């Protein structure tokens, strides 16, 4: 992160030397390499648990990283981002159950529904500041959650979408095959991260940083703050929805918890764990969170208590996420070495 590096007194973005296109190509190559490694993983480790873990990482990772586009890059702390995760899961599940359309069509249609809902909710919410934004997004999330619970004939109420989600083959891909589902989840994760990285590093990404730092000043240099906030709100919703679709495919259903406030809480927790000043912070936070969750729930019934203590450690002890801490430590170490030299 340029901003963080510069804060540590290290040289920041050298515009005369940095060429934008090679950086984009480099990111694409890294993404491709990561995808290849993930895709080959089942050949080395055949554990189904590991593959399940990676699929869950894909779903939660897309959700948490998209939340960071709002929290970390724009300064919009949404307490209701989980509604789009739930919307993705329910939209896709219902589409597959009720209409029987091919998976790619259901995927695109779910994103289109998410786009429409996010546009309406965002248009109302992004006008509000700080705590009001946070609580109104939470209110919308609870509205969607209540709708899911009360519209039993459509959603299955508190039992969720039951009976499984049909997963017909398309383009030679059979998502009822666990390995195919795994590779597809990895592909969606990598593509999603690559797209979000592009957003963060685009001129629009810097517009978001300006709004986060000083929205008033941003408007006095000609930025339409409302429009920029609405744009990122909708984009983030689309990525969260994709996470929900992966989760629906994984569990072959959708449950009210996906759209409950605790889902948004987990997103914020993941961002706190991993850190919000680096792009990959939320992804690291996702891995930590799922490892912690899986381990602690196996060991004790009081997993909430343990997770609470971990939050306190990061919030009060480190006062930053793990990736923020590591990068700061690395920058200090490099500065120290530079001074000695």
């Amino acid at each position, binding site marked *: 992160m340029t901003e963080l590096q510069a804060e540590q007194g290290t040289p920041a973005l050298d515009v005369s030397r940095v060429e934008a296109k090679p950086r984009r190509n480099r990111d694409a190559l890294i993404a491709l390499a990561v995808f290849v490694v993930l895709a080959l993983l089942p050949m080395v480790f055949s554990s189904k648990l590991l593959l399940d873990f990676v699929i869950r990482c894909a779903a939660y990772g897309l959700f948490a990283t998209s939340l960071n586009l709002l929290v970390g890059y724009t300064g919009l702390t949404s307490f209701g981002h989980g509604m789009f995760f739930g919307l993705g899961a329910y939209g896709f599940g219902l589409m597959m159950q009720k209409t029987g359309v091919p998976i790619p069509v259901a995927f695109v249609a779910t994103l289109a529904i998410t786009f429409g809902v996010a546009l309406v909710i965002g248009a109302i919410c992004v006008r509000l500041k700080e705590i009001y934004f946070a609580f109104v997004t939470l209110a919308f999330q609870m509205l969607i959650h209540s709708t899911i619970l009360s519209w039993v004939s459509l959603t299955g109420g508190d039992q969720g979408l039951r009976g499984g989600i049909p997963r017909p083959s398309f383009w030679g891909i059979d998502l009822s095959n666990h390995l195919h589902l795994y590779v597809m989840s990895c592909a969606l994760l990598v593509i999603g991260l690559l797209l979000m990285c592009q957003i963060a590093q685009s001129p*629009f990404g810097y517009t978001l940083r300006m709004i986060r730092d000083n929205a008033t000043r941003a408007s006095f240099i000609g930025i339409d703050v409302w429009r920029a906030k609405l744009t990122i709100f909708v984009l983030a919703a689309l990525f969260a929805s994709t996470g929900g679709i992966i989760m629906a495919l994984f569990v072959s259903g959708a449950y009210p918890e996906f759209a409950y406030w605790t889902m948004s809480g987990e997103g914020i927790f993941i961002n706190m764990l991993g850190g919000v000043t680096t792009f990959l912070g939320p992804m690291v936070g996702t891995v930590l969170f799922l490892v912690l969750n899986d381990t602690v729930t196996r060991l004790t019934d009081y997993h909430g208590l343990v997770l609470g203590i971990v939050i306190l450690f990061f919030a009060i002890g480190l006062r930053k996420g793990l990736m923020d801490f590591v990068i700061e430590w690395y920058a200090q170490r490099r500065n120290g070495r530079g001074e000695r030299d």
Partner: protein
Amino acid sequence: MLQIRSLSKSFGGVKATDNVTLDFVDGSLTAVIGPNGAGKSTFFNLITGALRPDAGQILLNGVDLAGRTPPEIVRHGIGRAFQVASIFPSLTVQETMLAAVCTDQRKAGVLYRRFPLAETRDRAEHAMELLGLAGKRNRVAATLSHGDQKLLDIALALVLDPKVLLLDEPTAGMGTEERWRMIDKVRELWEKQKITVVFIEHDMDIVFKIAPDIVVLCYGRILTTGAPDAIRRNEAVIEAYLGAEHHAEAGA
């Protein structure tokens, strides 16, 4: 040319700007002075869209900007720097300039390209050179000195190539030496850029030394306008603005 016509704004029963009519000729340098609470900052806030006027017109080359939003007004060519430096603390000087040029080129919403855009570099570089910030390009704005933050604030307005530049107390919070350096810089900018500059200032030595034209506001109304010599001798100004100091001196 910036023309203000019968501009008014009230807060409750208080008239912060009361039927103000003024002309700022292209390429002029004008100081706006007045005692505390005279309505100077409100006047700037009305021109730049931070406040909506109750009545009146703000004409820039014949286009009425009254009641428009700050982004619209900026795009029409009115730039502004603030009394308290208004910057983007986490960005470096260079990132700030590049991002501002992006905005001016209507590319702030571009998603498919990477920041920085090649076509924004020259203008950003020029603004940094002009304000003497080129050597601090990689410094994060939050770590700059107070004076440099004020310069960055002005650079942010200037990099957008405004026709009119409004500076709200460019020397606020500075020591004596720094004040003169800043005001020399303002004058240099005005001479080099050939734009209309309007600035609010409390230091009368500075005002009388550099401003060819002065506007005196008092209780939201224009008390008088004119050249420094005329303002200095104006009894109403002495009474309203320098009154306390003047009487104290006379008494001594």
